């Protein structure tokens, strides 16, 4: 029942909850989705169950995910609008119904068949690492697209049914999209122009670096994992297997190692690096190498020449029968890579798993942060641990469906154990080290999965809330834009929940000493405050854990603006860097309301004017009549 005018307005204009696809820009041009111009898009709502329109003219299509994206180029709206202009002209906007696992389109994902091929340190750029990819992800769509929540899906289906019952006659329910991008309004259609104009921000965030002991110039084993993914819809980027399974393995391995004897006094220095922004051109790993090489204000305590070995954990959530593959770039493996492989194999044996070196038919390493290191210097190489050999096992790579159900926790536990034990051997410099003391906690792995990859409990799980108060109930794994000035000590409001959680977790597990309570900062040397914003008070600990800015090495932040630097002569990766940016926008809203036939509005105005004029005429006439009447009395 409506009890007030605001109630009436809420009943008239229903705001729909959903995740939009937004406009992204690169050096080459635009990708993603947006309103084509400066105005809102309004179109009648029509539900499609196959790619046939029931009326002429542009409509706002409501469709199941399988019709939006699938392997069949002709039966998916994504591909069809890219290749068929007359079809695209009829799509004013797209509303994609919430897709639960039951109706996920099988065997396809939207990324390209060789993601980030241009960065590969080998010449075969057409090798299909991702054969199930349909390559619609980084294309430009000239209409707004929203992914709906389950409630909105139900609501919109009912509304679309109303329109159908009316046979598309007015008054119709229309969808109004406001996905107007600043870059469209200012006419800047590449990263270069929009950064100059200030109508966009570069993608990027913060990586986290941590170590069990203070970092000095010693031979170092660098252990890497990535923490960000991509999706069609920026606010719905799960990335469970790729790459969060690797991140979870790393976190669980650090946890296992924290309880192992002598880890704080290891012979070889172990530095963990969780890289952010990798999905957008290896931003985190490249920026780390840049800062390592040029110092630049963030003293790591070591330099590139000290990196002796690199171990990267890739996608490890779907291994078949605990079989993992070690990918190495140089076919003639150096002594240090051979040592890594040997430790991995020994560790695998100890947990009844298997490590196989990847096929020599592969052109090289699959898309990974390792590519940044290999491209940087021939001496930087190592082993990449993956669940697959010659092509991705993850059907839902960079897809909405790469969620917790796409993971096998046992696979992650196995990978984590292998990595932890291998690190232990390499760190202690003892191939016969007792591996039983290094035990991965499998319930920690399950907790990390449920915190980072499920909506319930999501980020309100005890593991997370013990360290931070999350800003969002569900963590999202899109790196986002760089907010504010990049700095090695960013303030909490510039960091997303996942980044803050990882920092706190690593600082806690790698701590060497406890030093009292804190609420924000700690005074002692090398002391950081862990859990400052979580439930309960924070603790000061001695730990080597810090943030490393992650953004394109072609950019420099100077007095509030982002400058695009010219390509350095030596750096190949800089020359091919797309320098991804995201447009600014004023608001992103989707609402649905009923609209009258346009001519009716004019008719009502005319009716009102007529009533007014007619009444004026009547008043004058009546007055004249009565005056005459009364005078004659």
């Amino acid at each position: 029942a409506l009890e007030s005018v605001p109630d009436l307005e809420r009943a008239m204009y229903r705001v729909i909850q959903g995740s939009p696809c937004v406009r992204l820009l690169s050096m080459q041009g635009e990708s993603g989705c947006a309103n084509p111009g400066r105005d809102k898009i309004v179109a009648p709502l029509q539900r499609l169950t196959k790619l046939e329109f029931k009326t002429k003219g542009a409509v706002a299509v409501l469709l199941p995910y399988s019709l939006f994206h699938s392997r069949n180029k002709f039966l998916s709206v994504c591909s069809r609008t890219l290749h068929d202009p007359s079809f695209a002209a009829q799509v004013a906007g797209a509303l994609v119904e919430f897709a639960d696992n039951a109706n996920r389109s099988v065997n396809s994902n939207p990324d390209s068949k060789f993601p980030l091929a241009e960065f590969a340190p080998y010449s075969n750029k057409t090798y299909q690492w991702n054969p199930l990819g349909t390559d619609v992800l980084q294309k430009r769509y000239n209409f707004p697209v929203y992914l709906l929540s389950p409630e909105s899906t139900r609501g919109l289906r009912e509304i679309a049914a109303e329109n159908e019952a009316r046979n598309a006659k007015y008054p119709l329910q229309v969808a109004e999209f406001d996905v107007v991008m600043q870059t469209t309004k200012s006419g800047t259609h590449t990263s270069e122009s929009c950064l100059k104009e200030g109508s966009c921000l570069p993608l990027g965030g913060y990586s986290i670096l941590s170590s069990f002991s203070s970092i000095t110039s010693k031979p170092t084993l660098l252990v890497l994992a990535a923490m960000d993914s991509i999706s069609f819809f920026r606010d719905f980027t799960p990335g469970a297997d790729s790459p969060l399974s690797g991140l979870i393995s790393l976190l669980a391995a650090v946890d296992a190692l924290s309880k192992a004897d002598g880890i704080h006094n290891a012979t070889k220095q172990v530095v963990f690096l969780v890289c952010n922004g990798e999905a957008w051109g290896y931003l985190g790993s490249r920026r780390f190498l840049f800062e390592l090489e040029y110092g630049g204000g963030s003293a790591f305590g070591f330099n590139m020449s000290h990196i002796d070995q690199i171990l990267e954990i890739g996608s490890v959530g779907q291994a078949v029968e605990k079989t993992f593959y070690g990918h190495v770039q140089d076919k003639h493996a150096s002594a240090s890579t051979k040592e890594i492989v040997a430790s991995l194999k020994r560790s695998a044996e100890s947990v009844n798993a298997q490590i196989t070196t990847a096929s020599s038919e592969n052109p090289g390493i699959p898309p990974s942060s390792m590519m940044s290191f290999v491209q940087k210097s021939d001496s930087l190489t190592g082993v990449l641990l993956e669940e697959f050999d010659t092509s991705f096992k993850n059907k839902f790579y960079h897809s909405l469906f790469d969620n917790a159900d796409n993971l096998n926790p046992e696979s992650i536990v196995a990978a984590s154990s292998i990595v932890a034990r291998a690190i232990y051997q390499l760190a202690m410099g003892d191939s016969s080290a007792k591996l039983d003391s290094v035990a991965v906690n499998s319930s920690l792995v399950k907790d990390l999965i449920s915190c980072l990859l499920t909506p319930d409990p999501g980020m309100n799980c005890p593991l997370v809330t013990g360290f931070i108060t999350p800003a969002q109930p569900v963590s999202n794994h899109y790196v986002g834009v760089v907010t504010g000035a990049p700095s090695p000590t960013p303030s909490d409001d510039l960091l997303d929940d996942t980044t803050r959680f990882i920092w706190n977790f690593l600082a806690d597990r790698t701590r060497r000493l406890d030093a009292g309570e804190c609420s924000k900062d700690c005074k002692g040397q090398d002391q950081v405050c862990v859990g400052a914003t979580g439930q309960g008070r924070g603790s000061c600990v001695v730990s080597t854990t810090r943030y490393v800015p992650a953004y394109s090495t072609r950019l420099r932040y100077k007095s509030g603006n982002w400058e695009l630097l010219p390509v350095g002569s030596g750096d190949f990766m800089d020359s091919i860097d797309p320098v991804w940016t995201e447009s600014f926008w004023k608001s992103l809203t989707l609402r649905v309301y009923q609209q009258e036939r346009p001519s009716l509005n004019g008719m009502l105005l005319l009716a009102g004017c007529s009533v007014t004029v007619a009444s004026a005429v009547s008043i004058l006439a009546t007055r004249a009549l009565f005056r005459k009447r009364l005078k004659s009395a």
Partner: protein
Amino acid sequence: MTVASGVGYTLIALGPGFSLFFLSIVSKPLLILTLLASTLVWLASLVALAIVWRGFLPLGSSDWICLPLLASSVALQEFLRVHFWRTFKKVESSLNGVAVRISKPPLRPSEKIEIAIALGFGHGLAHSIMFCLSLLTPAFGPGTFYLRSCPQMPFFLVISLISLGFLLIHTFSMVIFFKGYEDHNSGLRFFVPAMHAVASSLTLVNLVQNGCVIGTPLVMLCAALTLFVCGKSLWQKGD
């Protein structure tokens, strides 16, 4: 439904009011004051009713609650109308007294009718303000609204038409009522509260499914009848 239709609805509801104001009232300061005072008093009466009924919220989902609501509103307003007549007589005599002292003519019959119209217009305006104007604000946006019980007419159109009807009924009822007292014609005096009650009850027809198609035109019919009765009663004076 866009600014055009918003303005259209407002003109349907208040257009005759604008015309009346600018053609008859705006040129005479006494009438402007009368209109203002009358609007305020009638608004106060509606607000007082609202305050009392507020105590009974929430009203529940039964439609029958509308009957006591309407009955009490009509009763209070008709009771107030008698006091309008009494106050008018007092004002008339004091104005006439002043006129005698400064050797000017007393109130002419046409002037008394104009005052009655202004008083009635105040009543109609108060009704429009309370029951129509704020409801029309969403009509200026891009969307429209239909009640489930009335898919034939936009909600805002029903509101505007009913408001127009009552504007006319209230404005001219006051003239009829005063005439009834002046001429000692109890029929006219009885007509006014009866018409008010009947027209109010007819709005209840809108509650029925598809009732708005019957109810709204009937209210307009009541307005036409009021106009006719008013015109006839004034015409007869000429004989």
